[in-house]
Each structure stands twice: as C-alpha cells, then as structure tokens.
C-alpha cells in the first residue's frame, strides 16, 4: 500500500527533475535565444535528469521490497529465545514463522500463542515499520541526490541526447532478452524440479511404468503407500484424445480450407472464414464447459440408446470438442499454404484438361503437402498441450485402455491435479508435476521446431 504512494512520489520527483533539468539547460546558455549553443535539445537534459532521479531510486525500491521480508524473517528467527528454537526441524520452524507472521497481521494462528511468539510477532511488526520508514528515506534520498547529480552535470557541452538514447537502447536490449530469460526460466524451473523428482523415482519407472497413482499415503500402513509414477497410461490417454481431436479437425479443417480457397465465391469466403476463426478465439474453458455439460451427456445417452457402456467422462467427448477447437488452426494454416501454391501450377493442370477436383488432388495438395503437414504438426502440439478441455471433460483415473468410450487421463490433467490444492512443495507428488511438465515441454517444442522448419522450407520453395 505504502509502496504505491512511494512510487507516485518518485514519479513526481522525476517530473520535477525533468522540468528543472530542462530549465537549467536553457539557463546555462543564457536563455532561450541562445539555445543553439546547447549540444542537445533542452528536453533531453530534462529526460537525463528524470532518468537519474528515477532509475536508481526505483531499482533500490524493487530490491528492498524483494528482500525485506526474508531479512526481517531472518532477524526475527535469530532473536527467538533459544528455548523455542531448539529441537525443531526446518518444517516446524517455517510453521512457527508462519504463525508469527499471521499473529503480526492479525490472522488466525494454528498453535497456542505463547508469550515468546507474541514477543516475536511484536518484534516482526516493529521491524516491518522500521523497514518501511527506512525504505522511504533511502529511496527519496536516492531520487533527490540523483536529480542533484544531474543538475550539477548539466552543461552546454554535455551530450545529453546520446546519454538518454543509450539508456533507451540498453533498456530495449534488456526487453528483447526477456524472451530468452523466459525460456531459460521455464527450462531451469522444470529441469531442476524434475532432477529432484528423478532422485526419488527412477526415470525408468517414470517413462515405462504402467501404473499411475501418485497419491502418497498419509499413514504408512495404507495401501499403495509409496505411490506409483508410471506415465504410460497418461501418454496413451493424451495420445488417444489427440488422435480423436485430429480425426475431427484434419478432415474438416483441410476440406473447408480447400473449399473456401478454391471453390467458394468471394462473398461466401468473406463470411465463412471469420466465423470459422471465431472458434480459435473462444477461451478453452468455454469449450471445457461445453464438453462436460453438453457433449459428454449427449454421447452417454446416445451410447445408452445403442446399448453401449459410456463413461460419464469419456475420452470421446473431450477429443471431439478439442477437435472442434483445433479446426481453425488447421484450416487457416492450410489456407495460407494452399494460397501460396503458384497460380501457374493450377493453370497448367487446367490446360491439360483436369477438372478442378483433380487439380486439387493431384497438383495442389502434393505441392502444398509439406506446409499442410507442418500445420497439422502444429495442431497436434496444440492438442497435446491443451489443458482446460481435458481437465473439465476427461477423467482423473489413469486407465490403460484403447476404448474411446472409457475415461482416460492426460499429462496436462495430472499436472493440474497434482499442483492445485495445498501440498508440500518438496513431495514426490508435486515434483512429479514438474517432470510431466518437462516431458510436455520437450515434446511440444520438438513438434514446433519440426513443423516450423518444414513450413519455412516449403515457403522458400515458391519464393
């Protein structure tokens, strides 16, 4: 709360510094009439001052907010009387710290409040307020001294524009490196947690085991106490749902792309294409709702009418709806590649007397095939990584089955189930989610890289 006010204050200081810097620059050359003696336009001197006022102060503030809690907790823990701290495991200590924090903020506390804990909570509150005041003072001091420094540096010969521009350029380089940092963050976070997981469970069991029941028992005498982490049923479930989805999406998407680009009149194309693309813009949670509450019961009742046993969360329902979701991916990507086939190929085929469908089947599709394959691969990677539809419409039980009417589970469903709800961060159960995430990341990344390189090669072919 106070941080927002401080941020506003710093922004105000920056505005002031801008105005002052600008005016100071004009004053140093002796008024607006002499501005030609300045190296840069006056606004750049203003910006220079504002950046000196803002950047160090805001950086300090960010660091302060980031680390103050850890430091305060460390101080509080160290000042606890030794009688309280001794003989506690690290887990119990963190529980104790949680209690202290809850007590300090006025929340409900899990254990009884002893005088020591009350004292620690008071200590915590006191340190918090000291830290707040110190942050205000330090940040404001830095902002003001930054402005003062810029004030002193402002001279007619100072290359203000070049300095300001280099700051802009550096920040743009930093911004574009965020993409790398994100990938790095993804890789590091899933790889580290997965490595810790594979210390508990062997990769052999993980990738080739056929039994998945990650529930870790609360009591040691419970059945299946250790949990089983064989992912084969998850992979087959993911595969089955993806295959069903592709069986829906590829024919419909491809045929409608062909029809719209080769047969349809201009008006039909202009109307139908955006409507089909609406399907791509609908949030997946909406598809999930549709699958779980409309399609699944429908399939179930149709199955019952035909005397078939259909699970209420069948793979078929999730797969069908996922297929509908993927139609626009297949159709718009195929549309692009079909349109990229040169007209001369079509004209040549017509000149030989081929009908339109023969031209499409024997000339255009073979010519566009690499691009179509690439777009299908992209769609497959989309299907494998899709989460909400399967979370809402596919089941949780890891069945190893080939029957689409039964309930199966997928990799993404298991990641969500393992990580929602409160568990310890270090248990094999939560770490398994990261191992699954790593597998998912690698598979989809490989599919994307292959698909993109195929599409790129294909494009170069006709350019």
């Amino acid at each position, binding site marked *: *709360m106070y941080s927002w006010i401080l941020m506003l204050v710093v922004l105000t200081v920056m505005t002031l510094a801008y105005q002052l810097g600008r005016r100071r620059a004009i004053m140093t050359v002796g008024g607006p009439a002499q501005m030609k003696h300045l190296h840069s336009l006056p606004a750049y001197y203003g910006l220079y001052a504002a950046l000196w006022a803002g950047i160090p102060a805001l950086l300090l503030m960010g660091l302060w907010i*980031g680390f103050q809690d850890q430091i305060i907790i460390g101080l509080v823990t160290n000042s606890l009387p030794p009688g309280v701290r001794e003989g506690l495991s690290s887990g119990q200590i963190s529980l104790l710290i949680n209690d202290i924090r809850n007590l300090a903020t006025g929340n409900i506390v899990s254990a009884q409040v002893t005088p020591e804990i009350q004292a620690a909570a008071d200590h915590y509150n006191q340190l918090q307020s000291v830290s707040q005041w110190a942050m205000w003072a330090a940040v404001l001091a830095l902002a003001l001294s930054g402005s003062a420094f810029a004030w002193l540096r402002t001279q007619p010969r100072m290359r203000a*524009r070049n300095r300001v*521009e280099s700051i802009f*350029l550096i*920040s*743009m380089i930093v*911004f*574009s*490196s*965020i*993409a*790398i940092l*994100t*990938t790095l963050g*993804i890789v590091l976070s*899933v790889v*580290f947690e997965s490595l810790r997981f594979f210390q508990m469970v062997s990769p052999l069991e993980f990738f080739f085991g056929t039994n998945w029941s990650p529930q870790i028992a609360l009591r040691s005498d419970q059945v299946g106490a250790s949990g089983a982490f064989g992912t084969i049923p998850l992979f087959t479930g993911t595969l089955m749902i993806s295959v069903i989805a592709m069986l829906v999406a590829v024919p*419909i*998407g491809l045929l*409608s792309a062909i*029809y719209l680009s080769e*047969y349809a009149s201009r008006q039909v194309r202009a109307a139908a294409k955006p*409507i*089909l693309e*609406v*399907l791509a*813009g*609908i*949030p*997946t*949670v*909406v*598809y999930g*709702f*549709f699958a*779980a*509450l409309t399609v699944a019961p429908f399939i179930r009742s149709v199955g019952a009418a035909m005397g078939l046993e259909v699970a209420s969360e069948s793979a078929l329902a999730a797969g069908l709806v996922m297929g509908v979701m993927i*139609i626009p991916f297949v*159709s718009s990507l195929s549309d692009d590649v079909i349109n990229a086939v040169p007209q001369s190929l079509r004209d040549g085929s017509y000149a030989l*007397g081929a*009908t*339109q469908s*023969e031209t*499409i089947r024997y000339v255009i599709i073979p010519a566009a095939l690499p691009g179509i394959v690439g777009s299908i691969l992209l769609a497959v*990677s989309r299907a494998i*990584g*899709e*989460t*909400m539809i399967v*979370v*809402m419409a596919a089941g949780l039980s890891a069945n190893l089955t080939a029957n689409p009417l039964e309930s199966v589970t997928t990799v*993404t469903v298991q990641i*969500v189930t393992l*990580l929602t709800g409160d568990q310890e961060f270090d248990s094999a159960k939560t770490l398994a989610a990261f191992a699954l*995430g790593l597998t*998912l990341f690698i598979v*989809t*990344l490989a599919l*994307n890289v292959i698909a993109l390189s195929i599409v790129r090669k294909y494009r170069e072919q006709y350019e």
Partner: protein
Amino acid sequence: MNELTSNPPGRPRRTLDIVQASLKRRYARERRFRFLGATAVILGLTFVVLLFADIILKGYTAFQQTYIRLPIELAAESIDPDGTRDPETLAQADYMKLIREALQARFPDVTDRNERRLLSSMISVGAADLLRQQVMDDPDLIGTTQEFWILAAADIDMLIKGHIDRKAAEADRRVKDQMIGWIERLEAEGRIAKRFNTIFFTHGNSREPELSGIAGALMGSFYTLLLTLVLSFPIGVGAALYLEEFAPKNRWTDLIEVNINNLAAVPSIVFGLLGLAVFITFFGVPRSTPLVAALVLTLMTLPTIIIASRAALKSVPPSIREAALGVGASPLQTQFHHVLPLAMPGMLTGTIIGMAQALGETAPLLMIGMIAFIVDIPKGFTDVATVLPVQIYLWADSPERGFVERTSAAIMVLLAFLFAMNLAAVLLRRRFERRW
C-alpha cells in the same frame, strides 16, 4: 473396358472418346468432392452455432432471478428499540425473523414445525442481508409496513424457471409437493416474479447460487489485465523495435528470434509451472494475486505482441526512415518521432489481441493458486483474487443446478468482452490501415 465396347464398330478409337466416356464419372467425382468441401464448411459453421446456442440457451435465464413479494412489518421495537437509528443497532436486528413472520402470515394454515421450516426454506439465506441493506439505506422505513421483493432460494428459482420439472415424481426433485402448492398460491396472488438479476453483477462468489456473482472475478480480471498491459506493451514494443530496427544480425539475435517463435507455441500450462517455481517459490510473490497472474500472463502475451509489432514496423516504408535520417534525426529520433507513430495502430491491434488471449486464459492461473474460493471483491494488485475464466471453471464444477445457468451467463459476459476487444482491434485496423 466399357469404353471399348461402346465404340461404334469400324471407327478407330480416339482419345476424345476415352475422355468423353470417362467424363460422367469424373464430373460425378468433382461434384462429390465439392459437396464434401461444402459439408466441411457447413459442419464447422454448425459447431459455432451449436456452441453459442447451447451457452445462450443454458444461460439467458441467469440474468433474471426469482423474488417473492411480501408485506413486511418493520416494527420499530424489533429493529430499533431505542429509536436512535444507530447503524450498529440497525445492522444487528433479526431481519430473517421479520421475513419468516411475513411469510408465515401469508400461510396461516401452516402450523407444524417441520412444515414451517420447509416454508422458510423457500427464502434465500441471503435475503436478510439484502433487506438489512435496504433498511439501512433508508431508515425512515422503520415503523412502517412495506411490500418488499424478497430473494427466493435457488431451488425455488429453478422451479419457477422450469429447470425443475413440477410434474416429476416428488422423490426425483429437490422441491417438495407442499412447496409447489405454496408457490402456486403465491403465483396466483401475483407475489412471485422474475426480476433483473443485479446480484449477479454486484456480488462476489458464494456457496449459494442465488447469492453468487461475477463482480469479484471481473475486478480480478480487470486488475490482472491492467497490470499485464502496463508490463507487456512497453516491453513488447521495445523488444520489437530493437529486433526489427537496431539489432545486428548475429547469433544472439537469431537465438532471440527462434526463442520468441517457440515461446508462442509453448503450452500455456508450462507458463503456469514457470510462475509457480520462479515467481512464487523463488521470488516470493504472493500467491493468487493479480500481481503474479499479470507476471505470468505478460510472459505469455509477449510473443504475440512482439510478432505483431514487428510486422507493423516492417510495413512502414524505408523512405520514411531515410527522410528523417536525411534531415538530421538520430536513429532513435527517427524511430520514436516518425516510425513508431505510423506503426502504432498495428502494434495496438496486436496488443489488444494479446490482451484478449490473456483475458481468456485459465490453465496457467490454476497453477498459481487463482482457484481459491474468494468472496470479497479484490481492491488492489496484491489482494487475493480470482479471474473470470477461473470463476467459470469453478462454477462449472459445482453440482448445484443453479450454478449451470450462472456459468453460462458468466461465459456470455466473458465472450462479450472478448468480442468487444476483437471488434476494437478490427476497427482500429480498418480505421488506421495505410497502404503505402
């Protein structure tokens, strides 16, 4: 070899004859293929219509809610015995009792304790709070008897809306025969009506369908999107500007480019894992807040914005840059004063589309704890919150029949926002699109 036999004897077999003989078959194939294509398009369009029709049919009833009109005697001695009009006293009065008494007064023949309990179960548990609010807003009502519209319980609401079949066997439905009798009496007196459902737009989540609303989720989405926009727009535009205009062609920039293209296709749930491991566990950003959600969504939408912004920069002709450089602008001045304003519509379009994606995203937010049950409406970036799509997911999981229509209604609201954003993007593109 029908073609051979159909040839008149004595004349040599010409290619034309072969072709003509096969034409019928070939044209039939042509028609079949064309028909297949048209079927595929129609199927695709049917799915769109089905999806929307299903959601609208399931959800339109949620915009109205059943109320029962009851004359309630706001006796001064039971609400404000001292006559001080002190808000605290007003707040503590037993309004449920007043409503119950008013209802029982309509049915003097109901005397049995169990039946009376059944009777009062027709009123929502939140009705007392709503009545209290009305009285506290207008204390002059105290001492008078007024007709109030009292919120009915969810089961009664479902019955009135026809989601519970009155003709079904008593054991199969949640509303007892007696209650239906009472409802029919009230209906005959014109005391039951469906009125516009303001609760849906002003309340946070609740365990009771009739008291739950999307206000909390909407505010959560608002804060999340606002912060996402503030973070991702400058970063995206800056990155695009650097990569498109300044970056030297070397390994590092190649790596960045490959990365951006691949990040655009990474499953969203993986970003959730990143948010959980890096932002929450490592940096200690508070869970379930718009802050952490915005950080994750920023990373997710950045590729979209960067790719769109680069396309927008590419479409600005080089002559603009050359002219600016020619009159002595520095490279950065060229970009900021001349190229960026011309590329801005395209960049904004890309940003709006990225924001629409962020608004509809659910899976990564489940990972960072946005699925908590939250009644309060969040008031800032660090308050515990949920967002609209996650609210939809939570309601879709609820077994009560009343939540089905609310889920659909929330979906309609979400789709309306997405539609508006996409429309804005299209209009922006139309309005400012320039052909050089």
